[in-house]
């Protein structure tokens, strides 16, 4: 074996040419964090402009570019790649595999991401400005009426989609073929299960998104009229295609987060996950339902009443498997022996806030009530409760949870908890009042607003600045841990942790499980 054991190459080439799942995972995580900061900076501009009524800092046209880029960068640049990074690091270690199944493709799926985002961010400096039609880019605002930079945006979306599809194929191939002997599907850690299902969702819907942007490209440059009513096309068709991608997309974002929470809660409750089987089935049910609920984003487009009813009932059904998951997590805690280290705090925060986001989701599913909620700040509050408190909180939990295993150093618990509490408080000050202004009639994506919304908007902005600042603390915590954290070599960082990743040395060696472990 001796010659076979080699460490990483030196210098830049280590990162450029690496096929190691841990290196690639690390790059994904750092890249997504930098995109999180960039998307966050856009959000700070939005909240600064909305601090008071009246136009103060930016022009309406630029404001629209900020809302668009904030959404695109957060969804495609921050949240999705962060979970792919986590999958790269953890899936091989959790299933006892030496690496991902397709290491060279793995390198490529990461390295096409930075150029794609460079192009997307570069549109800010183009004539006519960056895309300004919202992250949902409804036609014809995004076609006939779009700035010239839309073509670069389309190219960038194609590349991102390619990266996601390759990443997903890799995860599917790894999970299906490289599990250690004895690890049957129903013995896989839940994080692996949720990612396997997510990967299938990605493979199914990313090509649909690619189709949508290609049709836009044709409309803009090649004289077709897919989405132009004047040429016999149909602007509503765009929304159907977009949301056929878009709804599974939101589960693509949240399912891996469910997986993370399902790993962490049992650890700190010191008790096995309650209802493992039903958790797997619930995840599969959510994934299936995600394909038949897309038009609940379109209740006001003028669908026939039969369509409204179908999508309303189907959407309401999602509450069932989602409820099962929440009940299982709470029951896992029941009669455990809990401690509240930073990862657990973030999971508790997730559980409370995601559940609130789930409730507003249920309210939004009710078509007649949605006629009032639709496109208001109530929707903005809803999806930030599920995206930020759901996906981003669980990602923070994951980083604190596995960081000691990754770098062999322990983070400062005090700093970690400080990060949690500032995030939690800032998040709620930022987003809770948005429910109020939404119900009171404030539309989303407006750069200026009527006077009755002033107080809550100022509150929301202050909360957003607090939440934004707490992420700098996160960066500090991670860097301080890597550089100067207390060294630890315990294989099992957490007393109650279970799973193969806790059987390898700490810090995890460059190559793990070259000889597959036997799972009983």
């Amino acid at each position, binding site marked *: 074996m001796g010659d076979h054991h080699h460490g990483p190459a030196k210098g830049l080439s280590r990162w450029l040419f690496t096929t190691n799942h841990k290196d690639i995972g690390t790059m994904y995580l750092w890249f997504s964090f930098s995109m999180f900061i960039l998307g966050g900076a856009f959000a700070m501009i939005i909240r600064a402009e909305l601090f008071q009524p009246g136009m103060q800092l930016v022009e309406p046209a630029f404001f*629209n570019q900020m809302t668009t880029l904030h959404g695109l960068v957060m969804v495609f640049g921050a949240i999705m790649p962060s979970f792919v990074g986590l999958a790269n690091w953890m899936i091989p270690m959790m299933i006892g595999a030496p690496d991902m199944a397709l290491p060279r493709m793995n390198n490529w799926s990461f390295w096409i991401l930075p150029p794609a985002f460079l192009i997307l961010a570069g549109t800010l400096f183009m004539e006519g400005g960056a895309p300004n039609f919202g992250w949902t880019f409804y036609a014809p605002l995004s076609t006939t*009426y779009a700035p010239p930079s839309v073509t670069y945006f389309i190219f960038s979306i194609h590349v991102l989609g390619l990266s996601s599809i390759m990443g997903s194929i890799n995860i599917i191939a790894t999970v299906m073929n490289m599990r250690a002997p004895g690890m049957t599907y129903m013995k896989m850690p839940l994080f692996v299960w949720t990612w396997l299902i997510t990967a299938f969702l990605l493979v199914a819907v990313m090509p649909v998104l690619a189709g949508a942007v290609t049709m836009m490209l044709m409309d803009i440059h090649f004289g077709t009229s897919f989405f132009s009513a004047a040429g016999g096309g149909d602007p509503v068709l765009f929304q159907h295609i977009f949301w056929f991608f878009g709804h599974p997309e939101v589960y693509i974002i949240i399912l891996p987060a469910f997986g993370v929470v399902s790993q962490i809660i049992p650890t700190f409750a010191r008790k096995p996950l309650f209802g493992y089987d039903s958790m797997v089935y619930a995840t599969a049910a959510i994934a299936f339902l995600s394909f038949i609920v897309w038009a609940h984003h379109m209740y006001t*487009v003028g669908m026939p009443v039969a369509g409204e009813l179908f999508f309303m009932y189907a959407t309401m059904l999602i509450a069932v498997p989602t409820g099962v998951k929440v009940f299982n997590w709470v029951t*896992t805690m029941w*009669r455990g022996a809990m401690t509240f280290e930073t990862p657990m705090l973030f999971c*508790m925060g997730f559980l409370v806030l995601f559940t609130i986001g789930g409730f507003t989701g249920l309210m939004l599913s009710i078509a007649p009530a949605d006629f009032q909620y639709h496109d208001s700040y109530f929707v903005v509050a809803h999806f930030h409760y599920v995206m930020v408190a759901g996906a981003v909180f669980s990602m923070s939990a994951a980083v604190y949870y596995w960081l000691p295993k990754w770098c062999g150093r322990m983070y400062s618990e005090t700093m970690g908890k400080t990060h949690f509490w500032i995030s939690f408080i800032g998040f709620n000050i930022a987003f809770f009042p948005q429910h109020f202004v939404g119900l009171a009639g404030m*539309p989303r994506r407006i750069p200026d607003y009527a006077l009755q919304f002033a107080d809550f908007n100022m509150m929301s902005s202050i909360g957003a600045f607090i939440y934004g600042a707490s992420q700098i603390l996160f960066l500090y915590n991670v860097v301080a841990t890597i550089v100067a954290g207390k060294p630890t070599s315990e294989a099992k960082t957490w007393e109650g942790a279970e799973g193969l990743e806790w059987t390898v040395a700490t810090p995890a060696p460059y190559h793990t499980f070259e000889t597959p472990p036997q799972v009983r």
Partner: protein
Amino acid sequence: MLLKANRLRELALGPVLMLLGLASAGAAAAGDKVNQVNMAPGATEIGQSIYDLHMLIFWICVIIGALVFGVMFYSIYYHRKSRGVTPSTFHESTKVEIAWTVVPFLILIGMAVPATSTLLEIYDFDDAEMDVLITGYQWKWKYEYLDENGENVSFFSNLRTPQGEIYNTADKGEHYLLEVDEPLVIPVDTKVRFLVTANDVIHSWWVPELAVKKDAIPGFINETWTKASTEGIYRGQCAELCGKDHGFMPVVVNVVSKEEYAGWLETKKVEAAEIRDLMAQTFTMDELMTRGKAVYERNCLACHGANGEGGVGTAIAGSAVAMGDVSGHLEIGINGVPGSAMQAFGGQINDVEMAAVITYQRNAFGNNMGDMVQPIDVYNHKKG
């Protein structure tokens, strides 16, 4: 009860806001809607049903939330390691899983029943007593009262808030951003059917207190309706991102008594006749410039700038179009530039307004062409 709830809210919110230094003096002007935290039942029966539905589901969620979080916090308090507990090992129960699949499903059915009946009511378009065609434009609304005799009354409704208030050089008025030059006027206790469409991109016509939100989509005509039971002024906004001035295209609906409505409609018809007379007149340069300036500020300024310097649109000051041949200038004004944000204004402003604004553009901003366009020229150009 409602009063009490409001009072409680103020008591709870007051100190929080003051702590953050948020007591905003300007907002006090906006009246009883300041810091509204919930949906308003509004002025229609449908609005009331939607509000009831909203509150029903809200309370169901509150109860479920209280149960789930109650169990969770009980567990957090009593089942913590520091209390010296030994963890249990139980980890599955098919019976429990079935129970918490079936019970929520039954609760959902309980929600679906009232939701379905409200939805069916909303989708009952029959027996409308009058029709109004609503067309969304970047960034204004056009209202057209469809008359059986073909005597349609139509007008545009533009934001009235001055630029000075928006850019903080003047104090903001009570209805900042929610005021228009000409509101939609409809009679009380009348089922009014709205036919909603758009001219350029997708907009969405939303008046919370009338419980109407419908997307205005180019190429489609959507149906919706309202029946207001109280007179009053109801304000809303465009709800679908429609470009630069999406935040600046409010909806104002004035619900008046049936008599007042009939009188108003008559006045509008007389006004329309007067404009038809104006079309035959010849104007002086000064008259055209005065009228033209007003038309420019309402329709052109948003894209072409206060001094014709351009912005979203091209510059008019010194432009080849404004300083070139009149018929080319008229062509762009009337028919727009297909495939761009420059709309065809021929159908949006009347011939007097078109003549005035073209004259204005040719003689303002240092263009000084010295020529005039009369309504008859516009008419002839349209005829081809």
